[in-house]
């Protein structure tokens, strides 16, 4: 059986092609880590590693996306630089992770947008802002008007907004869905091939929604600028993610109000969409600012420095989205409204345009990896390593 499995694995590896430079580095490091295993308690990556003797392309893609870049294994590593083994798992994994986002992008050609992600973000933002500023000017002849009767829809009619955003949103969902479907198909055979069950799904959902693997395994947090534990990243990420989801919920509820009940926007403060939007917007803004602050102060050896523009670009788009949305609420009755509305909608458009080609993808691929981990850990371990 052992030989058959080995042959099957070899065949898989051949079918998937040779390892890239970043994948070869993960393979090298995992062979050393597998002989040490001190980090087993930190996260899911090391338990996944101990089920393997060889690391094929799919294994590496899976493990790279399981890694949350918490930094615990780097600070604890007896083989970290300046040791000649130069083990830096968070960095090696981050480099492969970045590569997988591009490799699994749909359509494939657009994966290149990850190569210059700062530029991608900037162009998307410029396009979004340009479009809405031009539209506003074209329709109103001014961006500064104290006498805006009829609210937002006077500036941009509801039909126009739906017509612009619906296709972009549907495309983003489709692109991310098709990308992660290909990832799932590639890593499933490498993670036991077993089907996803309810308990595994629940466990993975729990791990993703609570950011379990940013708790250090001991529950006291991960690392940011040094070897101290902190919950800051986990908390700011929660503010960001749940803030984003509340904003999304606000829009969804408003859509229902509009189409089902025929209640057009704007909604006053005690209303559900407004409450969700205000709480979500404040939360998203706080989270994004916090994550940016942590990102800038991050230990230079954590992760892949080449991905900082992608990380910060995405964080900035989230922050501008939430800030402009909140300002629009506060200053909606002033002359600044048309300008703010154009800025807000332009930013939101840039955000959605780049969802499948930016940092947002990490949540999708990591969730897929966590689901496969929850499945794989329930399968018997094929290896029977005796002794120490």
């Amino acid at each position, binding site marked *: 059986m052992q030989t058959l499995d080995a042959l099957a694995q070899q065949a898989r590896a051949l079918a998937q092609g040779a390892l890239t430079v970043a994948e070869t580095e993960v393979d090298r490091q995992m062979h050393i880590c597998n002989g040490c*295993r001190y980090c087993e308690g930190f996260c899911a990556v090391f338990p996944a590693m101990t089920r393997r003797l060889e690391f094929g392309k799919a294994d590496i893609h899976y493990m790279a996306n399981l890694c949350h870049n918490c930094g615990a294994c780097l600070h604890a590593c007896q083989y970290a630089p*300046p040791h000649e083994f130069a083990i830096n798992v968070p960095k090696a994994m981050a480099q492969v992770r970045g590569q997988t986002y591009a490799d699994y992008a749909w359509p494939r050609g657009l994966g290149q947008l990850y190569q210059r992600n700062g530029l991608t973000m900037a162009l998307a933002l410029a396009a979004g802002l340009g479009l809405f500023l031009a539209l506003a000017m074209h329709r109103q002849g001014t961006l500064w008007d104290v006498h805006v009767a009829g609210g937002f829809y006077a500036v941009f009619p509801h039909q126009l907004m739906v017509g612009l955003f619906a296709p972009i949103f549907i495309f983003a969902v489709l692109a991310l869905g098709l990308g992660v479907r290909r990832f799932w198909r590639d890593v499933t055979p490498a993670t036991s091939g077993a089907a996803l069950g309810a308990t595994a799904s629940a466990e993975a959902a729990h791990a993703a929604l609570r950011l379990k693997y940013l708790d250090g395994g*001991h529950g006291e947090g991960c690392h940011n600028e040094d070897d101290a534990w902190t919950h800051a990243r986990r908390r700011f990420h929660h503010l960001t993610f749940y803030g984003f989801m509340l904003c999304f919920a606000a829009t969804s509820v408003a859509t229902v109000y509009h189409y089902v009940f025929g209640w057009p926007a704007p909604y006053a403060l005690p209303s559900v969409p407004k409450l969700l939007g205000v709480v979500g917007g404040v939360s998203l803004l706080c989270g994004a600012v916090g994550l940016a602050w942590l990102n800038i102060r991050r230990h230079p050896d954590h992760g892949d420095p080449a991905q900082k523009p992608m990380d910060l670009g995405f964080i900035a788009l989230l922050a501008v989205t939430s800030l402009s949305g909140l300002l629009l609420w506060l200053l909606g009755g002033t002359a600044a409204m048309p300008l703010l509305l154009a800025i807000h909608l332009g930013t939101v458009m840039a955000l959605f345009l780049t969802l499948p080609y930016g940092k947002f993808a990490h949540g999708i691929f990591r969730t897929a990896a966590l689901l496969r981990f929850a499945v794989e850990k329930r399968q018997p371990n094929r290896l029977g390593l005796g002794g120490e």
Partner: protein
Amino acid sequence: MVVDVLVIGGGNAALCSALMAREAGATVRVLESAPRAWRGGNSAHTRNLRCMHDAPQDVLVDAYSEEEFWQDLLKVTGGLTNEHLARLVIRHSATCRPWMVKHGVRFQPSLSGALHTARTNAFFMGGGKALVNAYYRSAESLGVQVDYNAEVDQIELDAGRFVAASVMHKLPDGSVRRERIEAGACVLAAGGFESNRAWLREAWGQNERGEYPADQFLIRGTRYNQGVLLKHLLAQGADRIGDATQAHMVAIDARAPLYDGGICTRIDCVSLGVVVNRDARRFDDEGEDFWPKRYAIWGRLVAQQPGQVAYSIIDAKAVGRFMPPVFEGTQANSLPELARKLGLDEHVFMQSMNDYNQACRVGTFDHTALDDCHTEGLSPAKTHWARPIDTAPFYAYAVRPGVTFTYLGLKTDDTAAVHFNKVPSPNLFVAGEMMAGNVLGKGYTAGVGMTIGTAFGRIAGEQAARAALKQGVAHANA
């Protein structure tokens, strides 16, 4: 600046001393000879603490009584121990973990591949370097001053009383600044001398083949355990324990780095195959017992072979049954090809392999038990897990002796005091590898080094604080 307690060393024992002394109210300064990136000495390579416990605890299953721990220690040391000090250490291990947790150490369940230690050993989450990081962080937050690149090479004594230490601060520009540091008391916790190649060469001498075996030894831990202070104290008449020719060594991958190869350079497939020396001959029973109980013996066995090298040979049947080696093995599709790739005499090698294969009496193979697969009429015999090596591909791993630590140290008592002519110093204490030989005269059992270091580190720190503060009061009253 004068401090109450000066701690020389920067590993587990040193930091336990520093933390205890600081908690007792003393001002403390720690001198670590390594740069910050290499701090912690051999502690950074450790992974667990052997712990006595009478009932299941967080990460420890069942119970491990004082008596059982003591019997284990008695067995591995062959009686080269001190029962009073050993039991002190053992009892200490039952109560020290909450204190460790207080200072930031976290524990995790026994690692996969080390399940047999789930009852006896509490594993540090992230291993020894995480423990060292936690202790340094805690020490700094309590106001302990830590100097890196600070090597102490001289201690001033006055009739057995510590007066001052002379430290060389190695500065970033390559220059050296000397500083004389007075303190009310001092803890020596600067490790053994295993990284000092010249000393190892001198201790091991020349063998009958004219070789200096120690020149081929690899050092599994830090390069900073040069034994400078140990030599200095012994020269000043401190009482010694153990002798310099004794070292704990295991058979490790010959391609391991010269220093700091740590745990991952081990070769765990010895008991699943055969081992031949440079002359392509077998030289010992590879299947006498489980590998964890044998690897230290094999370090010494390999040290006695020509060229201090040997080759662990397995076939495809063994793959997946042992902890994966860090470096790829030499692979071949036939045994003669393997001999050629290893540069061994093909004729002798095939004779050794054929003799072994024909002598195998295979019963029910089970690598998790002392099974009934053995050889008959073969010398040396292989008494368990003997299966013919006949299934391609074949793999070989070259092994060399890897030194973990040396046993030579300073004699001490239950107050951790350094002794001069059997008289304990009033204010000079010793902890860790520098005195582990008092408890562990030879042999080893997993995690006991950290147990000794933690127990004596804490005792030394407490005693040093008491000695320094008492002295301070005496000065104030005078």
